């Protein structure tokens, strides 16, 4: 196989992978869709913005500074391609699109560090203006120094729910409520796993404490009912753990139920997938070091499994070690053993998070027939259920063919996991029985005006 090593994604995983390759004397290609490196958690503000790292990244400022410094040091030593989207894969080559021009880049090895995106569960009203994902709410703050509203409600589950609410509180927003679908007891039950990283447990607890001190209402074990509003979100209706109904007024809503690995490129690179019961998602199969089943393809970071930023840095480095070794470069076994050992508690912590903040699959069955599931194509839960019932679609690709769910601009990245839950519930089948949406190019929309490089 000819060509360089290509790393896709300049988040913590991709940067550390590229760094390790450079240490071995290679000049990898580092491709990033955004204008700047950093990835999600260490996302940078636009050029010209001057907020210090402490203001942007809080407790993680030191790590952010270190990662950004590492990325800057790499710049002259890698083929750095920002604002470049990998939109398709062929045999041992990627098709990348930058500034309206598509180019084919062959690779000797490919490290996919594509990260994760918010995981959403639809509910009536979730497409109203003023409703964003938790990650979107955070990006507004981090990248643009904007808020999604002055009186937001944060709804969903997972650590990001509390973190984003806390960041909004610090930014001066009047957070109206933090509504968590996970019962508090789940957190207690998950403690044995979560204590694999006690520091994070303490930090999560301080966010909650600060929010409570500021008088923010925090409710756990809730059931979201609807987001209301005429032309934009104005209130959230929800049921508390005792079955009582509430209506909380607000001017914006941030929703999110944890993260979903961004696996489309792994799919296009023909990686095998297996159902991960903890994540309730089909994930590309990889060994401990990140080797996918396809020779020459490696997976690192949240795109392989959501273990968080610290794990992403280690996994990026480890995947680079594996790639180097497979390409015939000697790598000290001690380095790899150490990385694996440091990753072990993070894997355990991930399993704890899945237990503490489970994806509320049950909400899919409760979704009213008129609620939109696929927002790109405006497909309701009722239409999707009919595809699985009357039309007999036994799995998600067939349901997509009949109902168009997941056929729009986002290609099911937003709605795919929820749609699978709706279909499985309607058919009375376990979620893994309805399969996963097959990926198709382009990973994101490709302008017809795109020129092909010769």
């Amino acid at each position, binding site marked *: 196989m000819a060509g360089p090593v290509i790393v896709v994604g300049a988040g913590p995983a991709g940067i550390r992978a590229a760094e390790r390759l450079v240490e071995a004397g290679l000049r990898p290609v580092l491709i990033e869709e955004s204008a700047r490196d950093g990835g999600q958690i260490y996302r940078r503000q636009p050029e010209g913005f001057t907020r210090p790292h402490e203001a942007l990244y809080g407790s993680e400022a030191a790590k952010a500074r270190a990662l950004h410094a590492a990325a800057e040091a790499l710049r002259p030593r890698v083929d750095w391609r920002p604002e470049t989207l990998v*939109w*398709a*894969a*062929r045999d041992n080559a990627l*098709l990348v699109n930058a500034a309206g021009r*598509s180019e*084919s880049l062959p690779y000797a090895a490919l490290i996919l560090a594509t990260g994760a995106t918010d995981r959403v569960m639809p509910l009536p009203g979730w497409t109203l203006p003023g409703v964003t994902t938790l990650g979107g709410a955070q990006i507004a703050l981090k990248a643009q120094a904007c808020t999604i509203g002055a009186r937001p409600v944060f709804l969903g589950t997972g650590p990001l729910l509390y973190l984003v609410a806390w960041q909004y509180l610090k930014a001066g927003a009047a957070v109206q409520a933090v509504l968590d679908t996970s019962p508090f007891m789940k957190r207690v039950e998950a403690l044995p796993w979560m204590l694999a990283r006690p520091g994070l447990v303490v930090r999560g607890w301080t966010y909650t404490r600060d929010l409570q001190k500021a008088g923010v209402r925090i409710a756990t074990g809730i059931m979201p009912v609807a987001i209301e509003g005429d032309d934009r979100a104005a209130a959230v209706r929800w049921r508390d753990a005792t079955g009582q109904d509430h209506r909380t007024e607000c001017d914006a809503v941030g929703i999110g139920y944890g993260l979903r690995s961004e696996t489309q490129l792994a799919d296009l690179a023909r990686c095998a997938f297996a159902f991960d019961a903890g994540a309730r998602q089909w994930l590309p199969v990889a060994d401990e070091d990140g080797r996918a089943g396809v020779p020459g393809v490696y997976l690192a970071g949240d795109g392989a499994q959501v273990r968080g930023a610290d794990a992403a840095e280690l996994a990026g480095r480890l995947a680079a070690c594996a790639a180097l070794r497979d390409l015939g470069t000697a790598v000290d076994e001690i380095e790899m053993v150490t990385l694996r050992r440091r990753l072990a508690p993070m894997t355990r912590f991930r399993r704890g998070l899945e237990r503490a903040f489970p994806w509320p699959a049950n909400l899919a069955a409760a979704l009213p027939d008129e609620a939109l599931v696929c927002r790109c194509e405006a497909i309701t839960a009722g239409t999707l259920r009919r595809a699985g019932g009357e*039309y007999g679609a*036994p799995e998600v690709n*067939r349901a997509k*063919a*009949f109902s168009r769910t997941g*056929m*729009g*601009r986002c*290609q099911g990245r937003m709605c795919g996991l929820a749609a699978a839950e709706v279909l499985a519930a309607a058919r009375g089948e376990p979620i893994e029985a309805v399969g996963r949406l097959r990926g*198709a*190019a*382009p990973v994101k*929309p*490709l*302008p*017809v*005006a*795109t020129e*092909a490089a010769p």
Partner: protein
Amino acid sequence: MTRADVIIVGGGLMGAATALFLRQRGVSVILLERDLVGSHASGTNFGNVRRQGRFLPQLPLANRSREIWGRLPEVIGEDAEFLPSGHLRVAFSDAAIGKLEAYARDARPYGLELELITGNALRARFPFLSPEARMASYSPLDGHANPRLAAPAFARAARRAGAEVQERTEVLSIAKSAEDFLVETPAGTFRAPILQVSSGAWGGRMAEAFGEPVPITPRGPQMGVTEPVPYRIAPVLGVASDVTEEGVYLRQVERGNIVFGGGLRSEASLDTKRARLDPVNTLRQLPYLARLLPAVRALSVIRTWSGVEGYMRDDIPVMGPSAKVPGLFYAFGFCGHGFQLGPGVGATMAELIATGSPGVPIDPFLISRFAASEGDPR
């Protein structure tokens, strides 16, 4: 039910339509489909319901099919989004103009009336067309339909009419006893005195097993779709050209997306059952699409796909009785143009099986045409 008058192997549009029309003639049918009905070529195709441009002796069959497309609600209880909104073949060169003129003249005796439009008249009637377009051949009664819906709808109608439709049932082997075909599947043995092979690109392997090898190659036409925009383009548009890369086509669905295809085809595998789209082909299509419909340059492609289709060396399908095995019938290898033909093929095969006569001429498609050639037909 494990025994019937007829077993149909393959539940694409051909198999599903044949099953329905056989039931309408009172014949008992078992349809065996390896995956899901219409999940291969019949469910992944472009959706062109086009007669113009076809091999002329195929027009009687295409006309019969077009007539059924026009009354789908009555036949299967739904319309599969069939829209008889016209079809335009567009010429950019002298050579292509000559071809359009000759075809329009030659198609008339078959009952296909085509209107040739040029110059300002062309721009006035179809203002979205490229100013470079020199002539278009307009077939007002052709159109397009939704391939994802058609074959499953035929299968549901067949089932309602009493056909046994078995999905996820792969035919592993077929033997012939004195009176019956014995069809082995993981779900057991099915038997019938008559068998139809309508397994699409996989049909060649089955014909070969019956001692009738044919020159068939699986390929994947390259499809794509843009984001939706307001509905403005009624007819299906296609470029008339002998240069493969230039031969792109597109249609706008009523909800707004523009579906496109054409140009070079990708490799397809009978074993993995997939045709993997080559994104380089998509890039090649884009400038030709923009030449045909300049406004498309403002849009983005949101999805691409392909499907496994069987192409015969002479670019026409295999249809009709086996030349060797009594009771055996073929309808496969539709060379990228079988979607339009599907309902007509179903009606014709059902008539042939039930009465011994196809109702429209199918001589050019008989499998015996390959036996006549010398040596290995491939």
